[in-house]
């Protein structure tokens, strides 16, 4: 299994600013992912974070808005850029070394 930590756990940000979320895994993993989850809703995949190369984004998500880094096999960051109130959500980091996915505790973002 893998233990995932995320920082910050929550933040309140003003519109137009950017926030970078950090995700740290306690072991080397093959795949890392970033999800968004509105309260009471399902998980929506933003992108797959690829080690050493550009992230693979899902339809509706673009690199300019959600730049992602993954410098090694245990760490990734997601930046939410030029935020608007519509970006208010829970952002979850996930990692997988096989078939099952492990999730971090999430970052609760509120944009005012």
């Amino acid at each position, binding site marked *: 299994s893998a233990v995932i930590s995320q920082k910050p756990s929550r933040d309140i940000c003003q519109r137009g600013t950017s926030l970078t979320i950090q995700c740290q895994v306690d072991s080397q993993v093959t795949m890392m992912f970033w999800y968004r989850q509105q309260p009471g809703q399902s998980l929506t*995949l933003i992108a797959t974070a690829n080690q050493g190369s550009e992230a693979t984004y899902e339809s509706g998500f673009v690199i300019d808005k959600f730049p992602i880094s993954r410098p090694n096999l245990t760490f990734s960051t997601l930046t939410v850029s030029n935020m608007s109130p519509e970006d208010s959500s829970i952002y979850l980091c996930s990692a997988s070394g096989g*078939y099952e*996915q492990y*999730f971090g505790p999430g970052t609760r973002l509120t944009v005012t």
Partner: protein
Amino acid sequence: GQQVMQIPQYQHVQEGEDFTTYCNSSTTLSNIQWYKQRPGGHPVFLIQLVKSGEVKKQKRLTFQFGEAKKNSSLHITATQTTDVGTYFCAGQKSGGYQKVTFGTGTKLQVIP
């Protein structure tokens, strides 16, 4: 794109009653996974099913994968208050690495 729907969306049961959630995919799946998310928590992996018609049990939980590999179910026998949470299925299409698509989720409330 691939869609994974779950019914019911919500379910309230008396403690001791059984509970079932159904998961249906718009496309044939390579495998299906189930996750549980407690209120305020993050999704936690429960199980993966791979074979057509496969049935797996974990104590009071029974998981089934349909013959056509497009649907699945989770049945909980004699629910307990610790079963409270949202149950997500997550399907993965065949053909190399394919992202996991999470279902819409079923929120279970157990009344003591």
